[in-house]
C-alpha cells in the first residue's frame, strides 16, 4: 500500500510516501511501526499500551482522528492509499507526535477534579448504580484522554480558548458525582469565554470517539445545569 506520512515540526513539514506491505490483521499503528523499523528510524510517533486503553496513539488517518492501535488498515484504506498525520488542533512536536499540553491544561481549567465532601474518618457513602447521577457519570467515565474528540471539534479549531469535548465531559462527570462537594465551581469553570456555551452541537466528538462516548450529550447537560443555576442565583 502507498502510505503518506506527515514529516515535520511545528513550523513546517510535508507528506512523505512509503511503500508498506499488507499483512493480515494489520493496524495503522503496525504500519507506522513498520515504517520506523524498516524504512526510517527517525520517524517520531507516540504509543504505549497497543490495546486501546492508554489514549497515546491517536492520529489523523485519511483526514479523521482515530486510535491507531485499534484501527484496522482494511477498514480505512482508500484504494491502496493511506494518509497518516498528527492530531488536528494541537501543536506538532515532530512528525506524528503532538504536544498534548493544551489538551490536558484544559482538563484542569474545566475543574474536572474531585472536591471532597468527607474526610478519611467518615464511612464510605454508598452510591446506587442506577441512580440518575451515577448513570450520567458512567456515560462519560470510560474516556481514555486520546484527544480524538478534541482533534475532530470544529469549535476548538475556531476558538483556541474553547475547553473542548473531553474536558467538558470530565466536568459533567464530576458534576454528577453525588460525593462531590463543590458543583458550583464546576459550573463556574465551564461558563467562561471558552466554556460549554460555545459548543455548536455539531457532534463530531460523538462521531469520532473511539469508545462510543458522547461528549456532546455531556456538554448539553452542562448547558442545562448552568442555565438553571443562572436563574437560581438571581432569586
Amino acid at each position, binding site marked *: 500500500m502507498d502510505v503518506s506520512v506527515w514529516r515535520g515540526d511545528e513550523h513546517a513539514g510535508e507528506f512523505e510516501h512509503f511503500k508498506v506491505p499488507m499483512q493480515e490483521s494489520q493496524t495503522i499503528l503496525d504500519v507506522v511501526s513498520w515504517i520506523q523499523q524498516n524504512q526510517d528510524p527517525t520517524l517520531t510517533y507516540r504509543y504505549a499500551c497497543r490495546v486501546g486503553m492508554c489514549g497515546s496513539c491517536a492520529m489523523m488517518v485519511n483526514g479523521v482522528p482515530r486510535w491507531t492501535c485499534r484501527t484496522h488498515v482494511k477498514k480505512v484504506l482508500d484504494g491502496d492509499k493511506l494518509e497518516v498525520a498528527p492530531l488536528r488542533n494541537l501543536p506538532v512536536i515532530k512528525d506524528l507526535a503532538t504536544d498534548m499540553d493544551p489538551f490536558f491544561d484544559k482538563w484542569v481549567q474545566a475543574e474536572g477534579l474531585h472536591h471532597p465532601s468527607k474526610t478519611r474518618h467518615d464511612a464510605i457513602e454508598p452510591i446506587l448504580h442506577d441512580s440518575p447521577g451515577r448513570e450520567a457519570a458512567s456515560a462519560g467515565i470510560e474516556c481514555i484522554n486520546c484527544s480524538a474528540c478534541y482533534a475532530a471539534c470544529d469549535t476548538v479549531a475556531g476558538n483556541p480558548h474553547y475547553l473542548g469535548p473531553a474536558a467538558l465531559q470530565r466536568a459533567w462527570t464530576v458534576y454528577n458525582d453525588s460525593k462531590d462537594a463543590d458543583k458550583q465551581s464546576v459550573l463556574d469553570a465551564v*461558563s467562561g469565554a471558552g*466554556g460549554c*456555551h460555545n459548543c455548536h452541537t455539531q457532534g463530531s466528538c460523538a462521531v469520532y470517539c473511539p469508545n462510543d462516548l458522547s461528549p456532546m450529550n455531556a456538554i448539553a447537560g452542562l448547558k442545562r445545569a448552568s442555565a438553571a443555576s*443562572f436563574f437560581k442565583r438571581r432569586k
Partner: protein
Amino acid sequence: MLGLRLYMLQRLSALIMAPLTLGHLAVMIYAIQGGLTAAEILGRTHGSVLWFLFYGSFVLAVSVHAAIGLRVITSEILKLGESSLDLLTWALALFFLFMGARAVMAVTLL
C-alpha cells in the same frame, strides 16, 4: 467568547422572537386575504400602542440576538480578541436597534 450571560441573553431573546415572528406571519396571511394596500396597513398601525409594543419588542430582541450570533461567527472566522469582540457586539446591537427603531417609529407613530 460566549460566556453564560451572553448565552442566556441569546436564548431568552430567541424565546421572545419566536412567538412574535409567528404572530407577524399569521397577521400577514390573515390581513392579505381580501387585498390590502400600504395605506390601509399604515392606517391601522399609525398611532397603535399595541403594534408599537409588538414590533418594538421584536426589534429589541433581534438587536440582542443577532449581535451575539454575529459575535460568535466573527470570532471564529477572524479570531478577534475579547475587547474587539465586545466593541463589535455593542456596535452591531446599536446599529440593529437604530435601524429597527426607525422602521417601527415610521410605521406606528402618528
